[in-house]
């Protein structure tokens, strides 16, 4: 049997090593992204229509979510869930966080519209968008994508986009991926861990 177990042991060792890379271990409720994805970096447009980069947001824990304001379910559901998760934190800690809502539908989501949309969820919520090239670059960096469906007779079209929330620590390092259906208390737990890093 020797010829069989040796390569098998090698394969498992290599896979074990691959999964072990990435530095200090934090037990997240979501999926650990340390060492898996590059750090926060982008060029986008904010709610005032001004060009911004990641350096404007580094300094406090950041959540990033891709979506569009016409989104029927996932976007409002996820943002509301994040809003509830932030509300559960101690009052003096709630403003330590920022949630970047990046619209991948710049044609419909103007800066004004984004401001109006994000303000409904709380002061931590910031709307951003950009050119197709800027949005593609950031999506590719996060190993995500988006796409547009065919418009119906009213001109309404659907947008496919990433449904997950990316969590970054105060230095902008990518740390955790939070699925939109994660229960609120577990999201709150990951938010606290992000602030402790």
């Amino acid at each position: 049997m020797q010829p069989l177990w040796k390569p098998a042991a090698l394969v498992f060792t290599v896979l074990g090593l691959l999964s072990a890379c990435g530095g200090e271990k934090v037990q997240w409720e979501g999926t650990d992204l340390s060492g898996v994805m590059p750090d926060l970096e982008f060029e986008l447009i904010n709610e005032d229509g001004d060009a911004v980069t990641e350096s404007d947001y580094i300094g406090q824990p950041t959540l990033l979510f891709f979506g569009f304001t016409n989104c029927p379910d996932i976007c409002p559901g996820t943002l509301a869930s994040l809003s509830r998760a932030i509300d559960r934190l101690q009052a003096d800690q709630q403003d330590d966080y920022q949630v970047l809502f990046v619209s991948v539908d710049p044609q419909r989501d103007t800066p004004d519209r984004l401001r109006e949309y994000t303000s409904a969820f709380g002061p931590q919520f910031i709307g951003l968008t950009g050119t197709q090239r800027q949005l593609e670059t950031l999506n590719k960096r996060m190993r995500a994508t988006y796409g547009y469906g065919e418009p119906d007779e009213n001109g309404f079209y659907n947008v496919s986009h990433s449904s997950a929330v990316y969590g970054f620590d105060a230095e902008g390092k990518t740390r955790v991926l939070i699925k939109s259906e994660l229960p609120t208390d577990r999201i709150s737990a990951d938010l606290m861990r992000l602030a402790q890093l």
Partner: protein
Amino acid sequence: MITDVLNFVLPYEFSWLAVVFFGTAAVLYVRGCQALKETGQGEHPGRQLLFWLGLLLAYTVLHTRFDYYAQFMFFIHRGQHLVLHHLAPILLCLANPWRVLAAGVPEGRSRLLLGNLLQSAPVRWTYAIVQYPLFAGVLFFGLIFFWLEPGIHFRAMLDQQYYLVMNWSMWLEGLLFWWLILDPRHPEQSRTLGFGKRILLIWFVTIPQLWLGAYIATSREPLFDVYDVCGRAWPIDPMNDQLLGGILTWIPPGMMAVLTMLIVLRRLLHASNRPATA
């Protein structure tokens, strides 16, 4: 127009591994064809066609815009693995390109070094182990199951390193396995696997794969949420994506298994009609 073409032809994520692997194979094959032509033993055009078709298919799914769609649509990902694990390796093995590739290796030190490397004990032992029929069979369908385990699949689609290991393990394993099945040398003279065992081995790997494909296609639950997490290339019902992906894992590999079985059967009949010394 030109930018559209470029957009499709250029890789979504550039990989040196793909450039070196496919570049070397192409250069060796062209050189080999020329060298053999000069000696009057040129390669049959049909085989050349099979070789280029197989190589081009594998390159297209790995290193063009196709790879973008494969990363963000489950059913296109299944199509990518169908090409990498079945179609392209089968075409390449039917082309039996080793004589040409060997003739394409430059004379002198590099040829000597390559020869020594391939003849060396570690390489020969590794090859013998990987091509031990039971191990080869388990490895073949085991890899399909491994990469489709939802947790591992999630990681592979999120982590570029895992993603590369996934695609290349499928592609190289496909080449090894189908060479074991389609090696045209006579089993008795060249000590290759017997034709009957080859047919058994095809059955052995195909049945679990058919089951897995049917399981995915008929599952009522979403199994691979990573495509929601990362976003799809265009809006499509996730269950339709999964259904199509399941069918691509299920039906075409089954058909290809039958076809390769017929090829082996034909060779078996052909060989038994001729004396073994012919």
